[in-house]
């Protein structure tokens, strides 16, 4: 159960990346993910890996934490890569059995997909490891402000996102506690076939739902008691400040992008 919590979890620290404005980090991360799809050859891929390595080192988070982030997704990655190898066609055929074949293009495609998966997951882990979820939500709110013009209830949406993010660890703890209570009443989670195992989730899920509804109602009452008005303009306790270092990070991103397209054109 502890492994599930690790993926996308914040690692406290005071590295240059931790201090960066969340808007800058979110923008960097999204742009980087888009850039990954422009990498088409060895040189461009290596260049993007180099840039990612630099940010990993700047984040001062151990490689072990990143590995823990990738591990739960290893099966999905392997499965996708296997599909690419076996079912795509084109180029010289190395091995064939019925409609399954290993071709040169298949191998190349699978390599590129493997690269994209690893790099994108690692890049988003850099973001979540150095930024608390609430800060990411703040950044998201800021990016969504223009949508107000077309009457999107941005404040309500972001409040919902922040509350959802805020209660993930709380509900996780609650789930562990209830599971322990039922285990101490003789429930064995690790025995029997998959149907039996799923049936055993009922004594955990029902209390968890009941508790979450109760919590939601209490939270709503507490918010109303303190005069929450969804229409009112909001101020923020956590202010977003753009510093020189954030501008520097944007310039660095620009350099990465220019070099990437340079490599694409000239090599």
């Amino acid at each position: 159960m502890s492994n599930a919590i690790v993926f996308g979890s914040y690692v406290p620290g005071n590295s240059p990346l931790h201090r960066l404005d969340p808007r800058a980090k979110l923008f960097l991360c999204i742009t980087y993910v888009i850039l990954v799809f422009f990498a088409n050859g060895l040189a461009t891929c290596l260049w993007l890996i180099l840039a990612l390595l630099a940010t990993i080192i700047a984040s001062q988070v151990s490689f072990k934490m990143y590995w823990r982030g990738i591990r739960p997704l290893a099966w999905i990655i392997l499965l996708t890569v296997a599909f690419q190898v076996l079912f795509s066609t084109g180029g010289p055929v190395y091995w064939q059995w019925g409609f399954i074949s290993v071709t040169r293009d298949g191998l190349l495609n699978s390599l590129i997909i493997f690269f994209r998966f690893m790099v994108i997951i690692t890049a988003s882990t850099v973001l979540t490891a150095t930024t608390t979820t609430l800060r990411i939500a703040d950044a998201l709110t800021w990016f969504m402000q223009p949508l107000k013009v077309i009457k999107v209830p941005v404040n309500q949406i972001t409040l919902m996102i922040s509350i959802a993010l805020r209660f993930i660890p709380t509900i996780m703890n609650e789930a562990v506690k209830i599971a322990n209570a039922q285990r101490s009443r003789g429930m064995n989670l690790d025995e029997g076939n998959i149907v039996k195992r799923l049936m055993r989730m009922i004594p955990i899920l029902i209390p968890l739902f009941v508790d979450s509804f109760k919590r939601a109602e209490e939270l709503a009452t507490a918010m109303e008691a303190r005069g929450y008005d969804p229409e009112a303009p909001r101020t923020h306790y956590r202010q977003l400040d753009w510093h020189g270092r954030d501008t520097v990070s944007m310039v660095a991103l620009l350099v990465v992008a220019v070099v990437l397209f340079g490599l694409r054109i000239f090599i």
Partner: protein
Amino acid sequence: MPEIKLTDVSFSYLNRKEPALAKLNLTIPDGSFTAIVGHTGSGKSTLVSLIDGLIKPAAGTITVGTTSVGTDSKKTELAKLRQHVGFVFQFPEQQLFAETVEKDIAFGPENLGWSEEKVKAAVHNALVQVGLNAELASRSPFMLSGGQMRRVAIAGVLAMQPEVLILDEPTAGLDAQSTAQLMDLVDHLHRDGRTILLITHQMEQVARFADQVVVMNHGRLMVDTTPEKLFSDSRLLAANHLDQPAAVRMSQQLQEKGIDLPLTLTIKQLSEQLAPRLGGKE
């Protein structure tokens, strides 16, 4: 009947540097009423979770009766501990899930693989033990009052007839009357020969019921003693942020005024000491 013995037990949670428990040695004799005290985060809950086999020690061994677990024990061995031990969690009413009170209480006994009649008898007995009306058996547990829900949850643990009963702050959030009833039930279960482990912040409960008291602080066992010795040592109490029960405070204040009194733990003991001196009768 089981004796509980912990030898050099350590435990750490993931992502936390300080160990939750460090090199803990403790023996809880069979049939004792042991209170575990200490402020929040001192390792009380970790200690009882280890005794119930919910988590595995990082070092050391835990023995309950004839079952023993260590660092390389399998999950099935940990599950064996739970057959002797019943655990009433904090706010146990949160774990209710079944459509009826009866089905919820039967959950534990059914997991033990008992026959239908045995389960039925156990459910009935548990309902009587916690003082709930048998009519409630067919009601939904979610329709009951908070106090009743807690009693149903406790009945769900008692129905498994554990020889050792762990209670983690069972009276938190209850009114005075329900608290008194619940503590009477726990006292009664103890007199029936069960070993009781009670985590509590109420020093009055420690003074009145416990015969052994364990003080935890920052994952370490500070002292393992009797309530009499603990409450007469005001320096030890202060070092662990513990209060004295009212009767202890009053008898000490009287002693300071020069009145010759033995240390009294409960109001009842104190009044028995004072009443004759003031010329009153029983």
